[in-house]
Every structure is written in structure tokens, then in C-alpha cells.
């Protein structure tokens, strides 16, 4: 038995045991077990087939899995500490969810990915509606319906691919270098991509994401945005290892990046705003995974960095909302306590990509690995991010010192530490050019914010029906895209 999978099983077992009682203790033990397993299997292990039969499930511990393990364990620890007052099923469910995510990143089998993603979603639905507020439950139900639509598409795609190729192993499919000019196979791959895109909350596929992440309890939002949506991105990255769909992922990434920004720019509910930003930042990941090579490594780093600072932002925003009882950015301005302001400030500084924090290091690593045309797209995305986050500047005026940092301290330390590690690791980041570019982007973003804040365009609202239709049309588009690319 492989030590990494033992770690996953221990995590899941402790989650189940926690349901009987002592949920927080079990969660803490699970994190320790996870760290021990991570130390034992790092820096990785080659692909092996679990089960021994010819139909066993292939797993591998690659860089992607390593980075995600570190991220998941860290975010879980921070959220456990931040939400330590919660009792009942909250922490056991969270432990189960994190354990599922730890397992997902190893999987190199299309059906196993489906099972892992479904389990993660099922636990996410439960946690998103955990507080029993009608709005959060409705958001969670929308999430559930759209996620199931996505997974139904995924199953159809799985059937087509299995019927054509006779295997579900990602490595084995890659070896056979499938020919995507075959319409049945192209449609199958398009449906698989669409299913993963729904889980990943990409623009036009994942319109469940903003309400579900926005109205979930504080710690749950941090985990959903920081870790769980990335599982969809992981599935897309695995699919791009099996099939030559890089250009489709890049196109999807550009659409997601700018689509999310468009909605984030004018959103006034702070948590929904952060959720739309999760959509837009997924664009970076997809562009990186789609281009492959060094860009894929940059995307992995950005996934980790984004998990840390978006977790921090959601914890800070949620703490502020709980303290004030209001959600809109103008109403919160000038009423937040110092720890919340610190959390929002560090998170904003990082997500805008200013040195020396994690966002700068990860965006720099990603930009270093992409061709020059893609650099401009990334720069434009960075300007848009800075423009929409400029809205938060009025919030950065503390009104008191009450309250502690909680789990935010842990994530702040990680954001700073990751940034400094990145500066030491990537020589290209310590140049005046890179720093100048980062501040130029932020400055341009602020100017853009001043220009657009007077407008209040009426963007179409996404109801459940519209989101479902968008998902189905998006799936058709993806299938056509795979066929023509």
C-alpha cells in the first residue's frame, strides 16, 4: 500500500470518525497525518496501477499533486483555526472534503476523476448550505443542479471516449495519441471538458460559483474558492495531458479571465465580488495549462498562490460581514477592524501581483513561461484585476483593533513566505523591469477603475435556467472547438 494513498484514507477515516464526536480534534489529527504522508512521498512517485487488475486505477504523484497537497493542508489548517468555534458536523465534513481533494490530484483515470469530483461536490453542497440560511441553500441547490448537468455531460463523454479507445487511463490514452478529427471522439472529449469546466466554475459553465461561494459560511467560501474549484482545473489539466486540447484550454482561459472580470468590475457585494474574481483568476491557470511546458509549472504555482490569498481574502471579508451584518462594499467602508483590514490589504496586494508577495512571484513565473502574445493577455488580465480591486481601497481604513487574526495570520505568513521564496527561486523577478511592470499594471488598473466607476451597466443576471442553457451551449461550443482545433 502506497504511503500517499494511506494518507488520503487516513484523512477520510478521520473525517468519518469525527462525525461521531470530537470533530475538531480529528481534523487536526488528519492534517498532521497528511503532513506526515506528504513528507514521506515527496518529492513524488511514478505512476502505478492500484488494484493489480488490468482495470486498476492508475495514480501518480507529480509536481501538480505535490503543490496541491501543500496548498490543501495549509488552507485546511488555516480554516480549522479560523472556524474553531464551530461544532457539529462542520469540521468532519470539511475534513472529508479536503481528503477527497487530496485524493483527486493523484488520479490518472477518467472515471476515478469523475467519482472524486462528484464526492467533492456532494460535500461542497452540504457545507455551502450548512448554516441553513435560505439564500445559501438556494445557491447550493443551484450549484447542485448545474454540477449534476456537468457530470451528466461528462458521463456521456466518458462513454464516447471509452467506446472509441477502450481505455480510461490518461497515460494510456496519451500514448495512443488519439486522432481528434474523428467526430465521435471529438464530441466525447468536448463533453469531458465541459463537465470539468462546470466543476471548475469557468465562465459560462460555472455560473453557479458566484452565489454559492458568495453566500456560503466564511471558512467554506475560503475552502471552495481556494481549493475545491481548482479540482475542476486539475481535471482539465489531466484531460489536456491525455488529449491534444491545449488551444481549446487557452481560448477557454481567455474567455473565463475576461468574463469573470467584466462581472467583478461593478459587483458591490464583497463576497460575490471575490467569487467573480475566482472565476477570472482561473483564466490564468487555464492559459498556463493549455500552453504546457514551463507555463504549466507557472499555472501550478499560481494555483497555490491564488488558493492562499483568495482564502485569506474570503476569511477577512467573511469576518468583516459577520462583525457588521452588512455585505456591500460601500456600507463596510470605514467600519472594519484592524485584523480584517490587514487581511484584505495583504490579500489585495497579493492578488494584484505587486512585489514581494505570492501573486507577484506566481504571475512572474507564469509570464516567464509563455510566448509574448500571451504575455499581453496576462498583463491585460492583471490590469483588470487591479481595476476591480481598487474598489476595496476605501475599506482599508481601520475603525478599531477588536478581534484577532485567527486563521488569517497563518495565510498571511504563507502569502509572504511564498512570495519571498519565489523571489529567491526565479532570478528574473529581482529585476527593475519586472517590478516596474507590476507597478505599472497596478497603476493602469487604478486609472481604469477611475474611468469606469461612474458607469453602471446592466449586465444580464444569471438565473438557474440561463446558467443551465449557457452550460449546454458551452458544451456544444467546446465539442465544435475540439473538432476544429
Amino acid at each position, binding site marked *: 500500500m502506497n504511503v500517499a494513498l494511506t494518507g488520503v484514507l487516513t484523512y477520510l477515516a478521520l473525517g468519518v470518525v469525527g462525525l461521531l464526536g470530537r470533530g475538531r480534534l480529528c481534523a487536526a489529527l488528519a492534517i498532521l497525518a497528511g503532513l506526515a504522508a506528504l513528507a514521506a512521498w515527496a518529492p513524488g512517485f511514478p505512476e502505478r496501477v492500484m488494484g493489480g487488475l488490468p482495470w486498476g486505477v492508475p495514480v501518480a504523484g507529480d509536481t501538480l499533486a505535490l503543490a496541491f497537497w501543500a496548498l490543501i493542508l495549509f488552507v485546511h489548517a488555516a480554516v480549522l483555526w479560523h472556524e474553531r468555534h464551530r461544532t457539529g458536523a462542520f469540521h468532519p465534513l470539511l475534513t472529508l472534503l479536503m481528503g477527497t481533494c487530496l485524493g483527486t490530484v493523484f488520479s490518472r483515470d477518467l472515471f476515478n476523476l469523475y467519482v472524486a469530483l462528484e464526492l467533492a461536490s456532494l460535500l461542497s453542497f452540504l457545507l455551502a448550505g450548512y448554516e441553513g440560511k435560505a439564500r445559501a441553500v438556494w445557491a447550493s441547490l443551484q450549484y447542485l443542479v448545474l454540477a449534476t448537468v456537468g457530470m451528466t455531460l461528462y458521463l456521456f463523454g466518458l*462513454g464516447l471516449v471509452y467506446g472509441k479507445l477502450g481505455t480510461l487511463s490518461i497515460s494510456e490514452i496519451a500514448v495512443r495519441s488519439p486522432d481528434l478529427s474523428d467526430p465521435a471522439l471529438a464530441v466525447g472529449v468536448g463533453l469531458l471538458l465541459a463537465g470539468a469546466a462546470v466543476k471548475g466554475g469557468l465562465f459560462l459553465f460555472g455560473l453557479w460559483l458566484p452565489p454559492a461561494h458568495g453566500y456560503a459560511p466564511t471558512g467554506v467560501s475560503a475552502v471552495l474558492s481556494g481549493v475545491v474549484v481548482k479540482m475542476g482545473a486539475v481535471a482539465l489539466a489531466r484531460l489536456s495531458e491525455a488529449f491534444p486540447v491545449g488551444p481549446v484550454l487557452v481560448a477557454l482561459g481567455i474567455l473565463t479571465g475576461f468574463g469573470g472580470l467584466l462581472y467583478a468590475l461593478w459587483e458591490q457585494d464583497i463576497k460575490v465580488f471575490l467569487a467573480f474574481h475566482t472565476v477570472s483568476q482561473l483564466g490564468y491557470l487555464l492559459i498556463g495549462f493549455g500552453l504546457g511546458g514551463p507555463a504549466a509549472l507557472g499555472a501550478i504555482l499560481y494555483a497555490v498562490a491564488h488558493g492562499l490569498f483568495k482564502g485569506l481574502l474570503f476569511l477577512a471579508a467573511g469576518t468583516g*460581514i459577520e462583525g457588521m451584518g452588512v455585505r456591500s462594499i460601500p456600507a463596510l467602508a470605514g467600519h472594519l477592524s484592524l485584523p480584517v483590514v490587514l487581511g484584505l490589504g495583504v490579500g489585495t496586494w497579493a492578488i494584484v501581483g505587486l512585489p514581494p508577495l505570492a501573486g507577484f512571484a506566481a504571475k512572474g513565473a507564469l509570464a516567464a513561461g509563455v510566448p509574448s502574445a500571451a504575455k499581453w493577455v496576462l498583463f491585460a488580465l492583471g490590469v483588470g484585476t487591479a481595476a476591480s480591486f481598487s474598489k476595496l481601497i476605501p475599506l482599508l481604513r481601520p475603525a478599531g483593533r477588536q478581534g484577532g487574526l485567527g486563521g488569517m495570520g497563518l495565510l498571511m505568513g504563507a502569502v509572504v513566505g511564498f512570495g519571498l521564496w519565489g523571489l529567491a527561486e526565479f532570478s528574473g523577478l529581482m529585476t527593475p523591469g519586472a517590478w516596474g511592470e507590476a507597478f505599472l499594471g497596478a497603476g493602469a488598473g487604478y486609472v481604469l477603475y477611475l474611468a469606469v466607476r461612474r458607469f453602471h451597466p446592466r449586465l444580464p443576471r444569471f438565473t438557474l435556467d440561463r446558467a443551465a442553457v449557457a452550460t449546454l451551449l458551452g458544451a456544444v461550443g467546446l465539442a465544435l472547438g475540439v473538432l476544429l482545433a
Partner: protein
Amino acid sequence: MEGIAAAALGIALGGSGLWTLVRRRNVIWKLLGLNVAAGGAILFLVAVAHRPGARPAIEGLGSGPAADPLPQALVLTAIVIHFATLALALVYVIFLTEHRHTQDVHKLEREPEEP
């Protein structure tokens, strides 16, 4: 021939289920549509692995080439997952019916006032 017919039926069920999901305003109807669509996907998965004349994939039952056991194992998992998801969805519908007194999505989408 049975394989193609079953696959076509699976696609038809998937399409009609998704159509119901999009067209109906009642949440219960939407969930029913979703369940039919998921059933279609499961049927499709079994149908694509169909081999004419194959015996059931059980040791000692008939002779000749056995059917592919993998998709049958897969759909068992998928059925369990869909069962769990549907059960949870119905619990949420019960909750919403009690708290918002409606199952109509257009009414549910009007935001209630709560922090």
C-alpha cells in the same frame, strides 16, 4: 443492433431530461429531468460497451467471449452517486418549501433580505 438502439435511447433520455430541466419552472420537475438525463447517461455508458453475442461477465455462465465488465462496474458507482445527489437535492427543496413557501424558480430567484 441492441447496442445502437440502447445508445440512441440513452441519448434521447439525456436530451429529454435536459429539456425538462431547462423548460420547467418547478424545482421538483427540474430534478426529475436531471434524474432522467443521468439515467440516459448511465444507459449510454453500458450501451457503448455492448458486444453482440457476448455472454454475461460472470465466471461459469455460458461460453464464448464475455461482455466488458468495466462499464457495468462504473455505472454502479454512478448510480449510487446520483442517488445521493438527488436525495440531498430533495432535502434542500423541502427546506426551501418550508422557508420560502414556493418551489417556483422564478420566485426563489428573487432575493430574500437577510445578511
